[in-house]
């Protein structure tokens, strides 16, 4: 991590394609494989064949070094190795492993480059490869950007196949049988005459071999696990209450704690009076932490109760953020000085608009800030004892957490041990390290026992780093039943600058997140322009399931729908006419079929279509609604998605359903607002979520035609909100240009 810290401190390049202290030096480092971290502290009798495999007398452990936040990462990663290694499902344990550069993500950085997923230009191909260079050089062990499967698909299968080959060579040496006569099954090497040698027995000899340089991977036709319905490895535990999340951890002598920081964001604390709190039952200590205070007690509830009795003298907010003012600032940002990007500029938009004169169509759209609010509130356990710091938590950025811990404690990274935990959701929240830093602060101030720091839901809601607000201005021209010009300007805060700024990095160049899911859509509109504007000094914001595309899908697809209606065209037919990407055309046709698009509906019912390409995955969705006396009822969502390759169809469908409902619920009900520098919502009564009775039927059709392996955690989210708003327009004639929709129309 020392290396990561040094390199990133020089420059961290995600947003724009620049890199880091000397490319030639970097290239040598890139070719070298990082060291296998399992070799550190390898127990007697244990063997490791590569960073993803540990074998000892107890059996086989597969290393799954991404955060499992509910998307099933550990299951899918294990399946990739188990397939090539010929392990039976369930015959191995999984472990997330230690933080290590060996577990770098070669795909997550590429998402920051302004390369359309549908582009196959020289720049596109090299830019994507460059992402791998950045990821590997920096040892970016990050879970995010729907990149887990795409990144691991080859690497983990190769790891499995390489290990299998080493076990075969070891068995051939031991038995004297020719290697080609040996086969593998269920964790054993089998000889032609039926003798079986377990991997466990062969592992020590295999571990002494040099890994082969080349291995053949199984053709998909021979897969036993991949592409077939799987049982997620965590399912039984999660249905019997025995899955231990970070918040459930129990350690000998553990104390329980909570932290409060200034609800006025960035305001800090001038002092506090904890006399009453300290006298309360079970309270062990009340201590200052950055921006607030922490209470350590013998029970979480006692810590919560005591924290409520501490009289804090909060400082004034660093900025008196107010939602109206933030939107006004965004609306004032469509000016040259704030222009951030113009990756899409086709035809001559200005000429088309000028020629249209007063007949040009204009509209303004907006989307609000949103909270992640995973159901498990943020928490972390930390223990500082005998010069050693242990941290147990769920995090998407383990190596950054390690660096933060080193900075806070002054310890070397080898004295710090981070134990990854499963998380009760994240949606991007655990890309931040604020809650872990607080637990570390408490542990450093109170050495000895492990301290579990748990936020109240209120703390969680008030101290999120939200999905940013955005304002979009659309201007367009229609003629002859067609969309002739589409000019979209989007003004928003930069997620990349805000997030990277918190780890001390500045990011040069434009932020693709401001226009993601809008600038890179495969439509051949003759005059077509997408411009990003950066709202300066806005509040701290962060990645939220589908990041920039989460709001831009709504902005782009409602605006386009509005133009198509103005042209008197059919939303499906016109999109098909404009769409230049063949796989995406198939999706549009598919949702048309699934929803009986074009057949008449009774009055008060409507269908809405939207399409968004994000994270390299095109998704088309049709939402069906009915306007009832009690409000809008969402009847159905039809989803068609192209993903290249599905690893587990059961979990895949769950991710699509979950993404759809995530997008739907927030579009209908949710906004995070600010007044006087503080968040106005505090819990699930005023930050409202979708409930079962509001849940539509969801029908999913999956295409695997491009062969490009992609992730599915985020791409279903962006098209739901616009499809719903477009359906409401179709059903009622009411064009809603602002989320959440509930501000304009009631729902059942």
């Amino acid at each position: 991590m020392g290396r990561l810290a040094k390199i990133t401190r020089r420059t961290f390049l995600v947003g724009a394609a620049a890199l880091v202290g000397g490319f030639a030096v970097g290239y040598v480092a890139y070719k070298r494989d990082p060291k296998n971290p399992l070799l550190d502290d390898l127990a007697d009798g244990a063997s490791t064949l590569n960073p993803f495999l540990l074998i000892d007398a107890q059996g086989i452990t597969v290393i799954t070094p991404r955060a499992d936040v509910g998307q099933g990462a550990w299951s899918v990663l294990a399946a990739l190795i188990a397939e090539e290694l010929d392990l039976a499902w369930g015959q191995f344990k999984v472990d997330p492993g230690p933080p290590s550069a060996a577990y770098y993500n070669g795909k997550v950085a590429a998402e920051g480059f302004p390369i359309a997923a549908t582009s196959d230009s020289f720049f596109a191909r090299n830019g994507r490869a460059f992402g791998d260079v950045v990821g590997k050089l920096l040892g970016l062990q990050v879970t995010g950007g729907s990149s887990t499967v795409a990144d691991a698909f080859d690497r983990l299968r190769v790891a499995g196949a390489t290990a299998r080959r080493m076990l075969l060579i070891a068995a051939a040496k031991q038995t004297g049988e020719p290697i080609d006569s040996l086969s593998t099954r269920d964790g054993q090497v089998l000889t032609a005459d039926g003798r079986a040698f377990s991997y466990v027995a062969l592992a020590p000899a295999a571990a002494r071999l040099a890994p082969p340089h080349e291995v053949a991977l199984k053709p998909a036709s021979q897969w036993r696990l991949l592409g077939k319905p799987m049982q997620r490895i965590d399912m039984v535990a999660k249905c019997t209450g025995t899955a231990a999340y970070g918040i459930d951890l129990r350690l000998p002598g553990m104390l329980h704690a909570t932290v409060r920081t200034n609800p006025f964001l960035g305001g800090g604390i001038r002092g506090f009076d904890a006399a009453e709190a300290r006298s309360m039952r079970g309270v062990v200590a009340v201590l200052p932490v950055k921006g607030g205070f922490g209470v350590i007690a013998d029970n979480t509830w006692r810590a919560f109760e005591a924290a409520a009795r501490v009289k804090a003298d909060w400082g004034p907010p660093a900025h008196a953020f107010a939602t109206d003012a933030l939107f006004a600032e965004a609306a004032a940002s469509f000016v040259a000085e704030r222009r951030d990007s113009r990756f899409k500029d086709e035809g001559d938009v200005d000429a088309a608009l000028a020629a249209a004169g007063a007949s040009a169509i204009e509209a303004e759209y907006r989307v609000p800030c949103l909270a992640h609010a995973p159901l498990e509130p943020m928490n972390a356990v930390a223990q500082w004892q005998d010069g050693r710091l242990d941290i147990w938590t769920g995090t998407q950025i383990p190596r950054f957490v390690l660096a933060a811990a080193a900075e806070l404690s002054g310890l070397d990274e080898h004295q710090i041990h981070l134990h990854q935990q499963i998380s009760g959701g994240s949606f991007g929240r655990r890309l931040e390290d604020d809650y872990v830093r607080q637990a570390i602060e408490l542990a450093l101030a109170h050495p000895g026992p492990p301290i579990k720091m748990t936020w109240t839901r209120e703390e969680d809601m008030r101290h999120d780093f939200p999905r940013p607000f955005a304002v979009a201005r659309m201007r367009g021209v229609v003629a002859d039943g067609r969309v002739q010009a589409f000019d979209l300007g989007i003004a928003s805060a930069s997620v990349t600058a805000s997030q990277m700024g918190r780890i001390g990095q500045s990011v040069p160049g434009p932020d693709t997140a401001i226009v993601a899911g809008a600038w890179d859509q495969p439509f051949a509109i003759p005059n077509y322009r997408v411009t990003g504007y950066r709202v300066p000094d806005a509040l701290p914001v962060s990645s939220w399931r589908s990041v920039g595309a989460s709001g831009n899908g709504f902005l782009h697809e409602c605006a386009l729908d509005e133009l198509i209606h103005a042209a008197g065209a059919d939303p499906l037919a016109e999109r098909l006419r404009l769409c230049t990407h063949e796989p995406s055309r198939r999706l549009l046709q598919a949702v048309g079929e699934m929803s009986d698009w074009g057949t008449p509906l009774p009055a008060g019912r409507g269908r809405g279509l939207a399409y968004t390409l994000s994270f390299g995955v095109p998704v088309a969705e049709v939402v069906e609604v009915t306007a009832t006396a009690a409000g809008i009822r969402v009847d159905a969502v039809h989803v068609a998605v192209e993903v290249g390759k599905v690893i587990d169809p059961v979990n895949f469908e769950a991710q699509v359903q979950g993404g759809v409902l995530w997008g739907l619920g927030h579009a209908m009900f949710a906004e995070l607002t600010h007044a006087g520098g503080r968040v106005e919502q505090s819990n699930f009564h005023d930050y409202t979520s979708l409930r079962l009775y509001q849940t539509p039927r969801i029908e999913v059709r999956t295409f695997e035609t491009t062969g490009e392996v992609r992730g599915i955690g985020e791409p279903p989210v962006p098209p739901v909100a616009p499809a719903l708003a477009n359906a409401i327009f179709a059903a009622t004639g009411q064009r809603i240009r602002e989320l959440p929709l509930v501000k304009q129309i009631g729902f059942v």
Partner: protein
Amino acid sequence: MKLSVNGVEHELDVEPEMPLLWALRDALGITGPKYGCGIAQCGACTVHVNGLAVRSCVLRVGDVQGPVTTIEGLGQADALHAVQAAWIEHQVAQCGYCQSGQIMAAAAFLAIQPEPTDEQIDRAMSANLCRCGTYTRIREVVHTAAAKLREA
């Protein structure tokens, strides 16, 4: 005070106003019931008291009258309750954090409504929040669980 949880009698020394949830989680180490909101909004903390589903985050432990069952007591990996078996068959859980509460709510509901309609399921299960969006499967799985229970 005495508290019976999953068939085991516990002697507890805690304030009567401590919510049952925290008595279970931190005093007894029974962590199947989850903390999600603390104000009866999410249902992650749902347990049974006398067989009825309650929000343990707002029930004072001193007011508990009768035996408590948590997800751990409903069934175990080698002796699953029919509702849990149905949940595993349908692969319902994503992050799973809400699922203890969902399963406890469903089990209590099906005990009094063995042949539920979709509307009854919607009404009974809508108090339980799922941020991951497992609702589509929950609606299906409650029917499966009901069928399994009727067979049993």
